[in-house]
């Protein structure tokens, strides 16, 4: 449903996304991991249209979207939860949720809160400003993404600032969205809980896709993260590339 072909994003001669090709299948759950600065957020922003493609193509449901605006891609059914969500002055969670859902109907908004597992109704009228904690703003970010009813949902490190006890419920929520709504789900995360939940694990290093497959085969590579110098893998099971 989403096809990346020879995708590049370059800034002043540096290829931050360095020739990526991959096809995401409809309704599957993907986790993307990889070291800091490897290009995960850049890739997500290329798909959402926040970063312009330098070369290559992105097609979504058979349609080339790389020249579409953010708005147009949103309306095609792509949603993105920012790693660092914007903070506003004078805009509440209710406002964002209403924009995302396209309705300010109270019953619909309350149903959305239930759907994303937010029990405190008063949370709705919280300003989305600098006073929110990191975990709170990430929950709002996730809720506005789900409120879009997207065909493709990309969550950029949704677990940052979230307490340990909330991570499993968050994983279950995203799995439920995947199953009940057929949402193609892409989660950028280093958290094992998300990697375990994924149908397919993708690993990015220095702007390249260096691994795609299941978690078991990725584990040696992940366990070695701290000492690992990635090189380009030759096939999925290239043991040398885990070192």
């Amino acid at each position, binding site marked *: 449903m989403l096809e990346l072909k020879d995708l590049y994003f370059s800034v002043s001669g540096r290829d931050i996304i360095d020739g990526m090709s991959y096809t995401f299948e409809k309704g599957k759950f993907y986790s993307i991991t990889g070291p800091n600065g490897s290009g995960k957020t850049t890739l997500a922003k290329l798909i959402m249209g926040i970063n312009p493609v330098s070369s290559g193509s992105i097609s979504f449901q058979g349609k080339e979207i790389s020249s579409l605006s953010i*708005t147009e891609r949103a309306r095609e059914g792509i949603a993105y939860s920012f790693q660092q969500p*914007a903070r506003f*002055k004078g805009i509440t969670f209710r406002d964002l949720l209403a*924009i995302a859902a396209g309705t300010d109907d109270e019953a619909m908004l309350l149903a959305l809160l239930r759907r994303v597992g937010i029990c405190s109704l008063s949370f709705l009228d919280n300003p989305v400003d600098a006073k929110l904690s990191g975990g709170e703003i990430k929950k709002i970010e996730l809720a506005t993404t789900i409120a*879009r009813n997207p065909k493709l949902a990309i969550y950029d490190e949704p677990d940052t600032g979230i307490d340990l006890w909330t991570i499993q419920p968050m994983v279950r929520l995203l799995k439920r969205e995947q199953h009940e709504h057929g949402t193609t789900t892409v989660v950028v995360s280093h958290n094992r809980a998300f990697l375990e939940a994924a149908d397919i694990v993708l690993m990015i290093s220095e702007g390249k896709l260096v691994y795609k497959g299941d978690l078991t085969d990725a584990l040696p590579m992940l366990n070695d993260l701290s000492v690992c110098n990635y090189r380009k893998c030759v096939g999925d099971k290239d043991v040398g590339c885990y070192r």
Partner: protein
Amino acid sequence: MLDAIDKDLLKKVADLEGLPKGAFNIRKNGKLLKREVSANINIESNADGSGIIVTIKPGTINESVHIPVILSLAGLYDVVYNNFIIGEGADVTIIAGCGIHCGSLEPEGHAGIHEFRVGKGAKVKYVEKHYATGPGRGRRTLNPTTKVFLEAGAAAEMELTQIGGVDEANRANEATLGPDSLLLITERVLTEGNQKAVSANTIILAGAGSRANMISRSVIKGDSEQDFYATMEALAPCFGHIECDAIIMDNGRNETVPSLKARHPDAALTHEASIGKIASDQLMKLMSLGLTYDEAVNRIIQGFLK
């Protein structure tokens, strides 16, 4: 007695459909149009007829006074001096506002000097909106001044808004705070075209335990210009905070100068100031929720000035 233009202006500046309930005083083109007093709220013209004196009995709770001013007379510059005396322990809302409808090439303007004496433990909420409209190209000027005196334990919440269409504004707010009193000022000003607005604020925290918070939100579009000056001076142990944010669009220009003066070692004064374009991460977020660029800009400005 209210024509279509009057009704539109009243709606814009005072959210009124027709005449308000309770005490009110409507001034049109420099003259009294209609006045109503209530058991607890008296309104009378001052000695030289240059304005009104609103007296609120001690202990008056949950009542409101509307005192809108409307102007639609070419060449008029209307100046009023209004006094508000708010009795001890009262809790009231005062809704002011000035609407100008300009139909010709001649200038029109209004200066309202509003003085508030808020008695011990009394609370007042003051809402003031300024707005100008009309097909005429005459210069529209609005120069509001507020002077607030808070006695011990008194509280004033001031919402001051200039919504649009005003070519020139010289805004001034002054306040002196007694012991344990509280002042909240929120000023929102939008300018566009070649409009100019200056806001000068002086807040003196004179009493121990007094607290003041001044919030200013400016949106500067087109070739317009807005300057904001705020001084907080602390004479006693107190808390004061100034927060001023300006969003610049197009070629707008802005100067923001917050100033803090501590004349007492236990004064705590802080300020935050920012001037800049709409943050791109805010725009990206709203666009990723399906809004167009223009819709996202409008939504951000609307929230910012809300």
